[in-house]
């Protein structure tokens, strides 16, 4: 299944119509949408309520003032969300940049060169996809500890960069479609392998880079496990761990917790609305590798 198939399909299936009696179909779709949206909508409503409103009214009641942003201010300041967004951005930039460079270099080396040990290298990457990283953290922790990187932002950056094999495969698939004659032409003009990679291959990989940036960006933004294990200090919270820490101090203050959750969900929603098609293709490509 390639991305081309996914994008070309709607026209081909465009002539198909739903059979009569589609009322039930629509009803099931509306029911599913309610199931998806209701929990989110209630949390959004709660985030606009005052503490008293939450205490007295039912969960489904509407806030008295639709523009009550106090909880957001509380969540943002007391929950250290600004710092969390900063840390997450820092980790995102370095881990995405690293993944793109490392993934594309690996794909270039493996696809464009014949060398002894190539099979072994490929098998090394392939077998690594089978090792779920949740299981190995017990020992990975000791490795990171050995480097003295516990409780620094470099621990997650290195781990995100070093264990992303899916992106290697996305690059590998894409690089095969770039004609080798381009490399050869450049080589005749005196370009060396590094110049070819930097000036020809890398710029042509743009669509693959976009896919990797989107998948990697969203999974890194949402990751809880790695920052939770490796960054304990409060100043090093990412959006996931900072939100998780709401549990203690805010206790039963659901309006503040809700505001924090909405603050975290909002950027995802914006990105999703802007980049829908890329996201569908990217995740189906990423999951089937």
């Amino acid at each position, binding site marked *: 299944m390639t991305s081309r198939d996914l994008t070309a399909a709607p026209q081909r299936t465009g002539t198909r119509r739903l059979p009569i009696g589609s009322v039930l179909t629509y009803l099931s*779709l509306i029911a599913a949408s309610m199931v998806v949206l209701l*929990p989110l909508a209630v949390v959004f409503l709660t985030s606009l309520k005052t503490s008293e409103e939450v205490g007295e009214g039912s969960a489904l009641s509407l806030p008295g003032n639709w523009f009550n942003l106090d909880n957001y201010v509380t969540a943002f300041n007391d929950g250290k969300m600004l710092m969390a967004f900063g840390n997450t951005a820092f980790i995102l930039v370095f881990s995405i940049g690293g993944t793109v460079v490392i993934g594309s270099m690996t794909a270039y*080396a493996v696809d464009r*060169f014949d060398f002894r040990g190539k099979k072994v290298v490929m098998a090394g990457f392939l077998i690594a996809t089978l090792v779920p990283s949740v299981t190995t953290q017990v020992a990975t*922790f*000791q*490795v990171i500890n050995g480097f003295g990187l516990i409780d620094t932002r470099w621990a997650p950056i290195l781990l995100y960069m070093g264990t992303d094999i899916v992106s290697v495969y996305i690059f590998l698939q894409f690089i095969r479609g770039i004609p080798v004659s381009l490399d050869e032409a450049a080589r005749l003009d005196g370009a060396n392998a590094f110049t070819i990679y930097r000036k020809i291959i890398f710029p042509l990989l743009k669509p693959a880079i976009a896919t990797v940036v989107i998948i990697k960006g969203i999974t890194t933004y949402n990751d809880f496990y790695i920052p939770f294990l490796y960054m304990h200090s409060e100043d090093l919270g990412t959006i996931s761990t900072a939100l998780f820490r709401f549990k203690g101090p805010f206790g039963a203050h659901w309006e503040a917790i809700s505001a924090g959750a909405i603050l975290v969900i909002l950027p995802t929603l914006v990105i999703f609305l802007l980049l829908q098609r890329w996201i569908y293709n990217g995740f189906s490509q990423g999951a089937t590798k």
Partner: protein
Amino acid sequence: MTQTTDTAPEGAAMTGRSSKDKAKADTGGSRRHLVKRRRGPAAGRTRSWRDSPLRRITPWLFLAVPLALLITFTYVPVASMISYSFTDWDGVSPDRENVGFDNYVQIFTRPELLRVFFVSGYYLAASVVQIVVALYFAVILSFNLRFRNFFKGILFFPYLINGVAIGFVFLYFFQDGGTLDSVLDWFGVTADHPWLGDPTSANISLAGVSVWRFTGLNFVLFLGAIQSIPGELYEAAELDGAGKWQQFRHIIAPSIKPVISLSAILAISGSLSVFEIPYIMTGGATGTQTFVIQTIKLAFQFNKTGLASAAAVVLLLIILLITWIQRRLVPDDKVDLV
């Protein structure tokens, strides 16, 4: 063939590239063959770049950093995890003692360690529900419906949401007088027991959250597979008098089989390695402890690195075994990427 110019075999390889992977492997092979044969007469012409020692080092220059990271963060941990699993190490002290298979024996004999496998059962059942629901909506939305993209977006969006945020959303959903109770109240049903209060109800609730979260991914995968079926097939089937159900059985079902088998594998390994949702929502209390929560607690709260490593090795072996079985059952040529 040996007389060809430098670019010609590459041209041949290029056309090979655009076709399927199998053809790619062939041209790769013949290219290497050509290179070897050309060495005799052509080497005298100009010392081809292809043969220079630099050419042989170049790929390794590109691979140095990726391989270093791969080995340091995947293979070294796996190796040391296996070696820790035979010791009683606490993760800190310099000395550790070899205890043989004792840790493994503990995992399979101490009932409180073994019960996490039963918790996985809830998530496994949930993923069956998840696949069925995703399949239903993928089939429906492969038709030309009104608001199709709107529904597709709604169904997929939960998959993109931060796990901690989902945890809080559903803590509020399940709490006393929370969203679920209020909705049930609306329908005249009064639920007076706490949803996360006893093990069975808590595990079902948590597994339900995981259905809510992950159905979208399965749905988009299935939808993509269904939409890549050429429309002519349905037309031909209709001409032959096939009904909707027959079209599903004979056209849709076979063509999404690989994606379903992939989803089944992801579901099994996923239900063994559940961590986020139960950890965030209940912290593993009231019998909702999963395998990964237990391993993490053993390693980082109780400093039983040896025992935790053994648990992690067991999980790794189970997942490898499942993957191996799946590869045997459904030969998948997409894996053949070399």
